């Protein structure tokens, strides 16, 4: 796992750029990637490369490394990512079920006139969720959404780890910079994951056959890869 070395250098200060802008993190990260390039491409390096201008050779090695490294990085498989997702979902299930149970318990049943048939009212015994039950369910959904964006948007965006990924030891990083995505891109990634689910689950099944194990919209747009620590 020599190619994983850049990840070890990253891990020493994972939070350094946590709240920085994208531009800042790109600047700060240029170095480790180049180091990685030298390490990985070291033995195979052409002598011609060294004769070239500094920027040219740096760029060349960088692209070469990206190709070499990307196939051998410790990408998390689809199953692992599903597991992390399921752990993230646990609080949602708990809050949602409690709210739903309360709403069910506060259902009211009453006789209502639902129409007329030849001068006579047709009445029906109608069960409805009470206003309080609806309010609790709506509040629960808002709480769930806040949790979801905090956990998978802000937390995973700034530290690379949602709760589930922390438990299982996975990290989400930007493919080029190897740093965390930032809160904004993290939240965009959350939104796009909803869309990935919406397109007949194709987007979330994509890691099954994708080389870099990326989801179709959310990971590919935000340039995110998920790696084993």
């Amino acid at each position, binding site marked *: 796992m020599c190619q994983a070395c850049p990840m070890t250098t990253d891990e020493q200060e994972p939070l350094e750029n946590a709240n920085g802008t994208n531009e800042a993190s790109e600047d700060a990260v240029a170095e480790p990637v180049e180091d990685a390039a030298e390490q990985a491409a070291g033995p195979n390096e052409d002598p011609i490369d060294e004769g070239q201008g500094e920027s040219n050779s740096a760029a060349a090695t960088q692209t070469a490394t990206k190709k070499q490294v990307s196939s051998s990085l410790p990408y998390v498989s689809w199953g692992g990512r599903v597991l992390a997702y399921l752990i993230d979902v646990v609080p949602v299930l708990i809050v949602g079920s409690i709210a739903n149970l309360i709403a069910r318990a506060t259902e009211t049943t009453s006789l209502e006139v*639902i129409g007329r048939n030849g001068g006579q009212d047709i009445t029906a015994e109608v069960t409805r969720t009470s206003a309080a039950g609806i309010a609790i369910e*709506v509040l629960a959904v808002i709480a769930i959404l806040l949790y979801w964006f905090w956990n998978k948007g802000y937390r995973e965006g700034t530290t690379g780890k949602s709760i589930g990924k922390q438990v299982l030891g996975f990290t989400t990083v930007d493919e080029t910079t190897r740093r965390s995505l930032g809160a904004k891109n993290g939240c965009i990634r959350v939104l796009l994951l909803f869309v990935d689910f919406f397109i007949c689950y194709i987007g979330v099944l994509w890691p099954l056959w994708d080389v870099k194990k990326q989801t*179709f919209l959310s990971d590919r747009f935000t340039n995110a890869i998920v790696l084993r620590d």
Partner: protein
Amino acid sequence: MNSGTSASDNAPWPWRMATTGIDYLPVFFVFWLSSMIFGRPGQGMVVEHYGDPPRPYYVAGEVAGSVNLLIPIVLASIICLVNKGWLEGTTGQSVGKMLLGYRTQDMNTGEVLGPARASIRWILLNIDIAICLVGILWPIWDLKRQTLVSDRLTQSVVVKS
């Protein structure tokens, strides 16, 4: 994907879908929320009263409680018209396009569409969806990456901003 055609600046279909998807997420959410509050779904048994004094008897047939979706539909339409009509028409960017960095413009002049044309574009988008999604799949193979009905009729393209 970047085949070097004249339309290579136009947004590829996956990101078109992504922006539209993001635009529709709050619509679904508000539709669900408002149908919970205003739709008042319920279910029950039909009851008829016989005798003197009248006593309730349950008769066959469960009835669904009246579901009033007028308010949810109106709210969802308002969100779409504000976001995809007014916002996308005046600035070129709906919320989804703002987040992902794309903009809608006239295919000839490059100007923004204006609220009226953008609103019509959204109404036509629903036709694109209604024809078995063929219309919104059209950008996959279309040279200018336009949807079948909405983009073509309003002469608009989506480009990277």
